[in-house]
C-alpha cells in the first residue's frame, strides 16, 4: 500500500491517508473491472431484458407482446382457480419451490459430508501429490453429464450393481427400489456437484498451518474439539463458497432430477423452463426467475454481512 505522498502542498496525516485510500479504491475497482465488464455485458446486462419481459403480456405462441401487464408477477404468488375463479395462493409454485429448497439443502449437506473429509485428505497429502489428487476429483467430470448420470443409474437400478452386491452378500433378500426416488436425486446431485464443494474447501484448508493444530492439541487434547475449534473456523470460507456453488445450481438442476428421479415432480428450474417452453408464458417465467434471483441475492448479501469480518486483514 502506498503511504508516501509526493504532493508539493503540505497535507495532514488524515488527508494523506484519505488520498491513499482513494487511490487504493480506484486500483481495486480497476483490478476487478475485467470480470465485472464481462459479467455485465454477457450475463447481468441481458437479464434486464428478462426484467422488462416480466412486465409484458405473454405472446400467443411464446415470446411476448409489447403491452404492459403485471399478470406475470401476479401469477407467481396468486392465481384464480381454473374452475371456479376464486382467488387463491399459487400453491403449485410454492410447493415446487419448497421441494427444490429441501433437495438442494440435502445435496449441500451430503456434498459437505463427503467433500470436506476428501478435501482435508487431499490437503494433508505431501505437497508433490496434492495436485494429482485434486485432478483425480475432476477427471470423472470430463465425461458428459448425461452419460455420467446414466452410469449412476446403472449403479442404483433394480438389477444394478449396488442391489446385486447387497443381494450377493445377503444383506437384503429383495432388490431395494432406489431409482425414481428422492434418494436417487440427492445421490445423483451429490455425485454431480461434489467437485464444487471439494475444490473451494481444499483451497482454504490447504493454507492451514498445522503448527496451529499442534498447539491446539496441547490446549484441547481432544481430536473432535480440535477439529471444531481450530480447523473448522479456518475452513469456513471454503465451506461457504462450496455451499453456495452447490446449493444455487442445485435449485436449477435439470437433467439429474429427470433421469434419476423420473421427472414426476418439477424442480424450480424445470418450472421456469416449462414457462419458456411448452407453457408459452414468458412473462411468468421471467417473473419466477427474478423472484428466485432476489431470494438468492438476499441470502448471499446476508452471508457477506455475517462473514464480512473475514475480509479484514489478519495480523
Amino acid at each position, binding site marked *: 500500500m502506498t503511504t508516501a505522498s509526493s504532493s508539493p502542498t503540505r497535507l495532514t496525516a488524515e488527508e494523506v491517508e484519505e488520498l491513499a485510500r482513494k487511490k487504493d479504491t480506484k486500483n481495486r475497482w480497476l483490478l476487478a473491472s475485467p470480470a465485472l465488464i464481462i459479467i455485465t455485458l454477457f450475463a447481468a446486462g441481458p437479464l434486464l431484458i428478462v426484467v422488462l419481459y416480466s412486465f409484458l403480456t405473454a405472446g400467443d405462441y411464446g415470446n411476448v407482446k409489447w403491452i404492459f401487464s403485471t399478470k406475470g408477477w401476479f401469477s407467481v404468488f396468486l392465481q384464480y382457480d381454473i374452475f371456479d375463479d376464486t382467488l387463491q395462493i399459487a400453491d403449485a409454485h410454492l410447493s415446487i419451490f419448497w421441494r427444490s429448497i429441501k433437495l438442494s439443502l440435502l445435496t449441500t449437506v451430503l456434498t459437505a459430508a463427503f467433500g470436506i473429509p476428501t478435501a482435508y485428505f487431499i490437503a494433508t497429502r505431501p505437497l508433490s501429490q496434492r495436485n494429482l489428487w485434486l485432478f483425480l476429483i475432476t477427471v470423472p467430470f470430463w465425461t458428459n453429464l448425461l452419460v455420467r448420470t446414466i452410469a449412476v443409474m*446403472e449403479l442404483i437400478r433394480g438389477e444394478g450393481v449396488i442391489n446385486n452386491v447387497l443381494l450377493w452378500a445377503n444383506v437384503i433378500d429383495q432388490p431395494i427400489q432406489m431409482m425414481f426416488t428422492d434418494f436417487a436425486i440427492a445421490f445423483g446431485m451429490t455425485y454431480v456437484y461434489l467437485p464444487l464443494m471439494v475444490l473451494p474447501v481444499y483451497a482454504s484448508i490447504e493454507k492451514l498451518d498445522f503448527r496451529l493444530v499442534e498447539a491446539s492439541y496441547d490446549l484441547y487434547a481432544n481430536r473432535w474439539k480440535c477439529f471444531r475449534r481450530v480447523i473448522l473456523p479456518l475452513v469456513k470460507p471454503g465451506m461457504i463458497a462450496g455451499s453456495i456453488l452447490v446449493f444455487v445450481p442445485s435449485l436449477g438442476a435439470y437433467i439429474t432430477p429427470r433421469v434419476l428421479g423420473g421427472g414426476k415432480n418439477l424442480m424450480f428450474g424445470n418450472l421456469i423452463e416449462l414457462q419458456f417452453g411448452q407453457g408459452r408464458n414468458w412473462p411468468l417465467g421471467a417473473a419466477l426467475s427474478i423472484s428466485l434471483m432476489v431470494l438468492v441475492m438476499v441470502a*448471499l448479501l446476508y452471508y457477506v454481512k455475517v462473514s464480512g469480518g473475514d*475480509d479484514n486483514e489478519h495480523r
Partner: protein
Amino acid sequence: MSIAKLLQRPFSVKRIPGFASIAIFTFFALYAPVIILVVYSFNQGTSLAIWEGFSLVWYQQALQNEAVQSAGLRSLFLASVAATIATTVATMAALATTRKKPFKGQTAVYTLINQPLMVPEIVTAVALLIFFAIIKVATGYQGMGYLIVAHTAFCIPFAYLPIRARLQGMDLSLERAAADLYATPWMTFKRITLPLMAPGIMAGFMLAFVISLDDVVISEFVKTPGQETLPTYMLGQLRRVVTPEVNAISSVLLAISIVFVALFFFLNSRRN
C-alpha cells in the same frame, strides 16, 4: 500407494479419524460409475445397460462420426478458452476484493460477480438469445465468439469463489516484507502472491473448465449453425436413443484428461 497403507498411517496431528476412510470411499464412489461407463463403451450391442459382448464397434462408429468428433473438440476448445479467461479475470477480481479493508462498493462487486450463479441457466440463455440475435443481425458475425463470451461469463463465479476462499485470511506480511526489501510490485506479485494463490487458482480453473465442459442449456440457445458441443449433441439424442457411441467419446475424453494429468506431472517433477 495402497489403500491399507493410507489408512494405517502412524499418529499425526494431521490425521482426523474417519476422514481418510470417507475420502477413499468418496474416490471409490466417484469412479464406480466411470468404470461402468468405460466398460459399456466396449459393448457390442446398442444399449447402455445390456451387455452383449466385447467389441470396438462404437469406437469405430465414433471415429467415423464427424459430428460427434467435432462436437467433442469444440467442447474442449471452448472449455479451455473460457476457463482461461474466466480464471484470469477472477484472480484479479479476487485480489481486489480480499485481504484489505472492504472498499466502497465491494459488496456490489461481490454480488455482481456471483450473479450468474443466481439465475437458472434457462433465463440467462433466453436473455442471451435475444441479446445476441440483435448483434448477429447487425454484424452478420456467426463465429465462436458468442459461445466463448457466454461461457466465460458464467464460469467467472466458479473460478472466483475458490480463489477468494484461498485468499481470505491470508497474510499480507510476506508482501510487506518484499516491499520493504524494495521489490517492485510486479516482482512481489510474481514471486510471492501468485505462488501463495496457486492452489486456489488451480482449483478455480479446474472448476471453470468442467463447468464449461458440461454446460448444455446456454450453449443450446447461443450456438450458431454447426456449433454443436458435446452436451448439446447429447441433449438432441435424449428423446431418441442414446447409444454407447457417446460412452466411447467420453472414454476418449477421459483418456485425454489422463494424458493431461500425466503430462502435467511429468513437467512438474522435471522442474523440481
